[in-house]
């Protein structure tokens, strides 16, 4: 069993953490500026692709909510992300720089962000996180694949803490409006204080259960966690 100790998100209705009021929406995402997320200078934030900026913001807010955003020494915290489209927009933008002049103008900066796991690397660098980091391509936005893998990582003793969730910046899957953004949770094997949002566990069948209620998506989990918090 793991404790949920932090929640952070970016949606079309804004960004937030903890009890700020999660609202997914289906419209375009807000343009995120460095000042909205980080008080100190962070040059690289402006050079990141949108996928990395949104994902890093979600992770940052989750870590901040859990009180884990400040650090002196690197920590073995794992990073698990899921996505439907990954960095497809960045892939397209990059290859548009390859097409003219036989590739002579290919952008090295864009190429560096053409992997869907790069935003996890940015988070690892920013917050000194040295646990495992990987992205799953999932069928639906905010699929729980990353949570399941994060829990496995806690159970096997690979890490004591993980950040797990999902990120997407393409608002369609071929049929109608579709939520986009980032939603991340901090999960800890050993709680550091009073319970915050409740517990998350794996069922015998390999599903997820939060505070004795099954959860099938990241949306389910955030609603379950925030309800519990207000109940308390």
């Amino acid at each position: 069993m793991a404790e949920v100790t932090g929640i952070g998100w970016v949606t079309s209705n804004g960004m937030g953490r903890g009890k700020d009021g999660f609202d997914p929406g289906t419209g375009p995402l807000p343009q995120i500026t460095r000042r909205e997320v980080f008080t100190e200078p962070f040059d690289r934030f402006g050079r990141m692709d949108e996928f990395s900026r949104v994902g890093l913001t979600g992770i940052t807010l989750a870590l901040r909510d859990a009180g884990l955003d400040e650090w002196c020494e690197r920590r073995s915290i794992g990073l698990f992300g899921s996505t439907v489209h990954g960095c497809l927009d960045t892939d397209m933008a990059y290859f548009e720089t390859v097409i003219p002049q036989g590739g002579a103008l290919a952008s090295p900066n864009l190429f560096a962000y053409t992997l869907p796991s790069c935003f996890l690397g940015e988070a690892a660098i920013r917050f000194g996180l040295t646990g495992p980091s990987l992205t799953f391509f999932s069928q639906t936005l905010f699929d729980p694949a990353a949570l399941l893998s994060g829990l496995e990582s806690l159970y096997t003793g690979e890490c004591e803490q993980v950040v797990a969730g999902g990120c997407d910046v393409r608002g369609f899957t071929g049929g109608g409006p579709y939520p986009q953004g980032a939603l991340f949770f901090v999960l800890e094997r050993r709680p550091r204080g009073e319970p915050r949002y409740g517990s998350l566990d794996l069922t015998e069948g390999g599903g997820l259960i939060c505070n004795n209620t099954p959860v099938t998506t990241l949306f389910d989990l955030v609603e379950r966690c925030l309800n519990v918090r207000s109940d308390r």
Partner: protein
Amino acid sequence: MSRVFVVQSEAVTALGKSIEETWQGLVQGLSAVQPVERFRVECYNSTQAACISDLQIGPEGSRIDPLLEHLVHSVGKVPSETELFFATTKGAVDLLEHRLRHGQGQPLETIVPRVLAERFRGMLGGEGQVQVVSAACASSTIALARAAALIRAGRTKCAAVGCADLVSEFVFSGFSALRALSPEPCRPFDRSRTGLTLGEGAAFFLLMSEGRMRKEQRVPLAEMVGWGTANDATHITAPARDGCGLVAAMQAALAVAGLSPDQIGGICAHGTGTVYNDAMELTAINRLFGLRRLPVFSVKGALGHTLGAAGGIEAAVLLECLQRGTVPPTIGLVNPEEGAASRISSMGQETTGEWLMTTNSGFGGVNCAVVLKKAGDH
């Protein structure tokens, strides 16, 4: 805790349509690196890669489907109740290239790796969701590690891991722009190395718990005893010079295996041929294993860097090493880097070890290590 056994393994590379052909090419000192004919390379700082010579574009519009079909033709269908994993960095990226160049082609929604993974599942006759892992050049190593962890935890009894990546202009141009491509075939761990050479390929593994293996009367090829993953948290495209992430990954793998560094009999290194990667690896290996004799090799001078498929292909090569008691030559090595001379050779090396390790590192600071044990009597 269930033990994890490798009961089937296969690889398709530019050196051979099977792991047997690939192995024979490796030990003969062959290299599959050739001039690229698939796309124009005049503006790039390399003209060479290890492409599979007769790999055609399939009906879906990508070369990756025929590559996977060839792999599946060799391995057959997966058993029922098999958890499926698929690893890649860019999947069917040639579909995206075609669409952007010509303004037509497959819908964007079908270009993502998950859709390719579902086609792979269909080829294998698999059931349920496929876990599609993307973790840069350690993608398939990490997929193997996650699959093994599931079996060890008793959450599944059988898991299959597939992986594939292509030589594409998308990736070729990117590494050229980063000045990471070697103008000549790459020379891992050589003092004169100047960068990497790209390659393509695919690999497949079937892992089982001991109980499932016995029930199905499978013969183990090896036992997967350890795995570890760590991030060096240093730079997006460059490794930590002190090798801290790789050391942590190797230490974690040894801890899972319950082994000390002295018990490892050889290492299949990532060995890309870039100045910084190879220096980082030597630093990490020397730091953890000291100066004792330890055969280390890289296959990338022969097979090229196969990106997300590299870990799977290299694990398949490592299985051959375990069974044959030898590691293949490191192609391209002429004048070993300082600290490499006693370990890395342009000739094959004998290994008497019962346990061998393979490692991969990638963009985003990711590192992964896997330890395989020679199969005993089962």
